Structure formats: C-alpha cells, structure tokens
C-alpha cells in the first residue's frame, strides 16, 4: 500500500498559557477569539486542566509577547476558561527548518524508544 510524506512549509510559533482553570473548553471559539486578536491562524494543540497550548501560524513571537496581558484577557473570554492570578504566557520562537533528509524514510508511529519497546 502507498505511503507518502508531505512537508508543510508553514512558519509557526507555540503559545502556552498556564495557570488557568479549564473545564468544558470550546476550542473552536478560543481559536476564533485569539485569531481575531492577533490576526493570525490559531490551532489549539494541547489542553490540560490548567493550561492551553496553541500553534500560531505566520506570526511574530515578539509582537505576541508585547501584548501578553491582552492575549490572556482575550483567551479568558472563551467558553470553559477562567484566568487566575497565576496565569502566565510563554511564546516560543518560530520553528526552525531542518534538512528533509532527517525525516525518517520509514512510516513513523513512534519515537525510537517506543519502537524499541514494541520490537518483536
């Protein structure tokens, strides 16, 4: 059967907001609110009971960091999120491009350790 690899040449940065209370989060609403706020495409990629992690595409991390309080206030408007006095934001640098030759030449479903643990 066919197996293919596709490379997405998108610039993105990872935005993590911690110190929240999260229950019943409407991720679609959060993405829309934050997208309107920072004028970039937003994708929620990870949620716990006290944090939200998002991919922000084609945005400048420095601009997001400058308005950290504004970003936190916007995020807290989404259904299922309550900000607390412990809420803080961390925004990574843009992802770095790697050599495509580093992409594995076999279908991947696990890291090296997982493959070792599942070895026949």
């Amino acid at each position, binding site marked *: 059967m066919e*197996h293919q690899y596709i490379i997405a040449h998108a610039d993105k940065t990872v935005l993590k907001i911690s110190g929240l209370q999260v*229950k019943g*989060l409407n991720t679609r609403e959060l993405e829309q609110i934050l997208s309107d706020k920072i004028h970039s495409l937003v994708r929620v990629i*990870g949620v716990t009971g006290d944090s939200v*992690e998002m991919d922000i595409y084609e945005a400048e991390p420095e601009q997001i960091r400058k308005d950290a309080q504004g970003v936190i206030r916007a995020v807290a408007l989404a259904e*299922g999120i309550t900000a607390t006095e412990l809420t803080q934001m961390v925004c990574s640098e843009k992802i770095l491009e790697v050599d495509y030759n580093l992409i594995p030449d076999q279908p991947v*479903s696990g890291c090296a350790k997982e493959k070792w643990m599942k070895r026949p």
Partner: protein
Amino acid sequence: MKTAYLLPTGNEIQNGIVLDLDTPELMIQLIRRFPQVQVTRLCPLLDDEEIILRQLEKLTPMQPDLIVLIGGSGGGHRFSKTLSRDFTHSALERFLDEHASREIYGKNGHLWCKLLCGKKGVTLVINVPGPFVEAKAAFSAFLESWSKGDSLEMINSAMAQAVFAQYPAGAAQTV
C-alpha cells in the same frame, strides 16, 4: 453506508476539559449525505494504544460499514511533555488488514499529522485529526472521495490534501 461508529479519543475529551465538537460535526456530515445511516458515538477513549486497539477489536464482529477514530493523529507529545499522547495511527497500523497512509511534517521535522485509510474485513476504517477545522475538512474529503468509489489510496490522498489545506503553508512538497 448503513452503519458507522465514531470514536473520539483523548484524555481531555473523556474528562470533559475539552468539549467534543468534532463528533457532532462528523455526524452532521454523515447524516446529510446518508440520511438512513445508523451512526453511533462511543465513549471517548483514553490516549492509550492498547485501549484503542481493544475497542476496535470489539467493533469488528459487528461488521459496520465505517469506523472513524477522531484525534490522536499527531506526534506532538514526542516534543512537548504537556501535549497528549497520539496513538490512533499506531493502533490502526496494528489493527488493519490493509491500509494507505500519509504523514504531514512541519518544516521543523515534527510529525504534525498521520492519516490512515484501511480495511478490516468488510469495514472501512479511517482516522481524522483532533483540531476542529482539520477534522471537518478531512471527513468532508473522505465522504466526497468514498462516494465516488475511490480506492483506499485515493481516499487517503484526498483526506491528507484537505488537512494540508488548513495550514497557511503554500505548496505541499511530497517526498
């Protein structure tokens, strides 16, 4: 299409930290295209390969037309400790008799999404990503391709392109 099972995955979905928006959207699309379909949403599964596999094996004897696994299609936990563990693709690889698959990587070399389309006996089995817009696009592409009688490879390709189109990424590069 007569019977379909939708299986949301993710600890955050099961414990209610995140609303399950994907399953209702997939149900709407399915019912719109097949008004007589009997579609069942099962209890969300934890992010555990063995749990996912056992649930798939339970459904097999019922010979549904379609099983859809929702979420857990990325590889994020390998790079961030706080992200959910993604096991739907690895469970499907162990479960399916035959399948086609595509992996979408970011330019940073991280696996963003792996989609499979395969068969187990008479049942067609696919997975879709968790983010709402990607799940919606992938399933819409699946229905369109499946309705045309496309092969597993063609369905898988259509779904991967639909997911890729949700990234602001310019042209795809197939390697």
